[in-house]
């Protein structure tokens, strides 16, 4: 067998050429600083930050709570403020955004609703873009991809918005950066079973998120060529070594696939395809540092994954079980997304902080926020801690999620780009899993966490003329309409998303 080592450029030629991500440098801008020279517009970024929780607690009206045994009503506890328009109350979950002076940088869209059949539980009765009447799975698909769900399974029946955007807005070899902070399921009797996906290429084609900040760091930033001569020599050596290691595998493709049966050929082809994709990513011309683009510090080894959950209400939930420091993990991922955007390595990202129906122990995070809740995130919405239930505990957990969203927005805002900042050229969504309305399964109980009514999305940034800073109370618009708007803000030219049609024009002022 003959082994030829190809240069990177030769490889690239053979692969039909791979576009290269470049950071925006001053010298590349036009005179107004609003576009690159030769009228190439500044890159537009799109991201979804996802929280696996609802916005209110079971059986507790908005704003009503019991904390450490004490009942209270507080009009600023529910995420949706009483006022619409600009200058509205920074409610409890929005506090991290207010603290970072970001209230003018996002709009809060309330009153969103995914339709469902109130009269029938048949799959065939689910309306277009609607939810099969079994939470959690039934609500996931229409929220993520705008196409009706047909069962209780966690899946999407069409592509999610991040993948659609990555399809037309891809600077280099990396499409959407799909990452997750919660690394483990934490329950012994079950496993993720689809709850760990918020990104789909298409019908039933989920994209596995990377949960290791360390691996994300290396896959994004190992490609940068160091400026120091000896480091550059090492870098070149490592790169060649990586390529040779992988080509020894891909060289076997034909032989291996030729020996196995038809089913295995399909299974293994997909594996080989993914290795080929890694080769393409490595072979792409290196991203270039400069301007605001400086590879971040290596996050180092990943934090340990916490043990399984000790259970709501029990004394042992205070211990570090069911928690892998998702807070730090989310921040590390946000750092990496930020710099990947700044360096234009990718323009699309999803950060799933917690999974659908998350059983992450919220005791550590809620204690740090002054409202200790002895429950996991899912049970928090279902009154898992008998002494602390309702709005305030749920909003406290939501505030924790939003703090990571705020952290990302703040970094984007504080990174200059052209005449403005990176957030100006972005549409960044915050997406909780559920609203706080009629229970989806029985289509009866009010104030349920398992609800696709009264849903909320936050949309930050000014890409494409988005006008942030307002509370927009929609009249039961589909969440997919908000996503269409955000997608259009970054260049989507169609008017549909799954089975959803039309944007929410209010977002553009």
């Amino acid at each position, binding site marked *: *067998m003959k*082994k030829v080592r190809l240069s990177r450029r030769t490889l690239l030629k053979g692969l039909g050429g791979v576009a290269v991500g470049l950071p925006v440098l001053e010298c590349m801008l036009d005179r107004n600083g609003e576009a690159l020279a030769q009228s190439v517009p500044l890159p537009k970024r799109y991201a979804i930050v996802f929280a696996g929780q609802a916005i209110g607690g*079971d059986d507790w009206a908005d704003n009503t709570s019991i904390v450490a045994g004490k009942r209270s009503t507080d009009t600023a506890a529910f995420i949706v403020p009483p006022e619409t328009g600009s200058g509205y109350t920074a409610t409890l979950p929005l506090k991290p955004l207010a603290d970072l002076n970001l209230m003018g940088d996002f709009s809060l869209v309330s009153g969103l609703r995914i339709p469902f059949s109130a009269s029938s*539980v048949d799959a065939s009765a689910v309306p277009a873009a609607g939810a*099969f*009447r079994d939470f959690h799975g*039934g609500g996931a698909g229409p929220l993520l991809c705008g196409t009706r769900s047909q069962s*209780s399974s966690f899946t999407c029946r069409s592509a999610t918005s991040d993948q659609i955007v990555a399809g037309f807005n891809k600077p280099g070899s990396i499409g959407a950066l799909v990452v997750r902070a919660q690394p*483990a399921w934490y329950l*012994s*009797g*079950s*496993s993720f*079973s689809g709850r760990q996906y918020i990104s789909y290429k298409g019908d039933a084609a989920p*994209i*596995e*998120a*990377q*949960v*290791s900040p360390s*691996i994300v760091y290396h*896959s994004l930033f190992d490609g940068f060529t160091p400026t120091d001569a000896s480091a550059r020599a090492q870098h070149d*050596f490592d790169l*060649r*070594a990586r390529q*040779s*290691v*992988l080509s*020894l*595998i891909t060289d*076997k493709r034909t032989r291996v696939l030729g*020996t*196995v*049966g038809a*089913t*295995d050929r399909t*299974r*293994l082809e*997909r*594996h080989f395809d*993914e*290795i080929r994709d*890694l080769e393409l990513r490595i072979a792409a011309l290196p991203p270039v540092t400069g301007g605001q683009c400086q590879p971040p510090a290596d996050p180092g080894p*990943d934090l340990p994954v916490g*043990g*399984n*959950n*000790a*259970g709501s*209400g*029990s004394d042992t939930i205070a211990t570090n079980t069911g928690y892998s420091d998702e807070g730090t993990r989310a921040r590390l991922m946000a750092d990496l997304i930020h710099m990947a955007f700044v360096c234009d390595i990718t323009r699309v990202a999803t950060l799933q902080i917690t999974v659908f129906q998350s059983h992450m122990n919220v005791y550590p995070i809620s204690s740090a926020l002054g409202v200790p809740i002895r429950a*996991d995130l899912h049970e928090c919405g*279902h009154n898992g801690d008998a002494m602390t239930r309702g709005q305030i505990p749920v909003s406290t957990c939501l505030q924790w999620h939003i703090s990571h969203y705020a952290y990302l927005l703040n970094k984007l805002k504080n990174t200059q780009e052209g005449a403005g900042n990176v957030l100006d050229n972005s549409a960044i969504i915050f997406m909780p899993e559920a609203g706080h309305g009629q*229970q989806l*399964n*029985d289509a*009866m*109980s009010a104030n*349920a966490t*398992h609800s696709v009514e009264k849903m909320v999305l936050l949309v930050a940034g000014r890409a494409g003329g988005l006008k942030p800073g307002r509370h927009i109370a929609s009249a039961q618009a589909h969440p997919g309409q908000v996503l269409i708007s955000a997608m259009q803000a970054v260049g989507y030219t169609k008017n549909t998303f799954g089975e959803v049609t039309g944007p929410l024009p209010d977002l553009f002022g």
Partner: protein
Amino acid sequence: MITGAGGSAPRADTASASVARRLSRTEIDATVRDLLGDTTNPAGRFLAEDEFTPFDNDYTRQNPSAALIDSLEATAGDIAARVLAPATRSRIVTCTPTGPGDAACFRQVIETVGRRLFRRPLSEDEITAYLTLQSFATENNPTVPHDFYTAVGLVLRSMLQDPEFLYRLEIGAPTSQPGVLRLNSYEIATRLSYFLVGSAPDDRLLDMAKADALADPTARRAEATRLLADPRAHDQVHRFHAMWLGYRAIPGSTDLLAAFNTETTALIDKIVFDQPASYLTLFSSDQTYVNALLAAQYGLPAPAGGAGWVSYGTTGRAGILSHGAVLAAFSKFSDTSPTQRGIFVQTRLLCNVVNPPPANVNVDQPPPATTSMCKLDRYAAHRSVASCGACHNNLDPIGIGLEQYDIGGKFRTSDDGHPECPLDGNGTLPGYGTFNGPAELGQKLIDSGKLEHCFVEHLLRYAVGRALYPEEQGAVDTLAGGFKASNYSLTDTLLDYVASDRFALRTEDAAP
């Protein structure tokens, strides 16, 4: 029987369908530990969690992804760096290289390590391909440190990312029966080793495969006997039970969990390996192995000498269903769930199908409120609703018979925090009559004759790495018949299965 696989399975009476199965995280960890001396469980750190259905080796849930490929690259680099640290590398580099370009020594490493990791000898072409990596050891590059071991590291990285390492490829040769394929000896060695010890075949098995000795059922039985004496076989049997019975990860304090683990593994080891007895004793044993902490938890006398076997006496406890580990599984967060425990018995111990609740049921709310504060009153009110009772009558009465045992295995006579709500421990196993507590439930399950069958079904499911096709019922029946004939010897049953013709055959699974 519980079936999950879609489609049909032609020739399932003769052979089980198989596809290229990816090693689970646990299998990768065990493999690099045994073959390369890396004891750090690297796969668990880098690779996404396996799905459990209830076993972690369900190939129908395995999908390649960019995240997987990136993680594998990181894992391979991580392992190679550790294995080739100066203090440890002599384990896999047994020759002493004369210099960076020592081709003979390099070839020896490639042949040895490749044979182990790919579970078959490498072809001359493959060896030649890996030999090209030696240029990274010999290149003229004064600024980058590199030596003989640099190239060995690259070989390791490449092999550890190779589908032939990650997947158990089974091809087989045609037989006189259309569609039925006979595995070669290397494929048998791999199947045997991963089934019994959860790791790659050792040198002895590979030597036997080279001589094509494993086509012989007697030789397979002898090798399986050897492997069952390996501590890794004990671990494998423990893991199987933890996944089957749902206690692989349960809440509790570190001390208590350690005591639970010791208790349950002690009973399994005693019955299966150390003092072989009827496997069904697992559900009827009148003794248990406890330390002072666990004795206090169960209200049993503390054993002399800190830890040891104690008799349950007339406590109403017997067998594994009395163990804190099993009682902790299938519970709600803060309390037991009679429904979940009912589902556990019906699905895991009797292999009955339990349908999920209808979509329009709001399962978040506890059974409807009554004036009573008592849990069992609420459950009774719930079952009195016809649409609920239809299913819950087959579930809750089982769990109610275990209600006197809380999620930590402690005995109680009333609801937690509600002394006015007495628990009498009386339950019903639908179709088999009333019982009170785990000892009587265990006996009822044994007497039902279904427990042994359901156990064997789970065993086969674990062996083939997926839910069974309905057409595999005959194979379960055969295995269950042998289990009974052996007076319920688990090791004999494992040996019989390994020695059966079925073990050496496969069909193509049409469903990827």
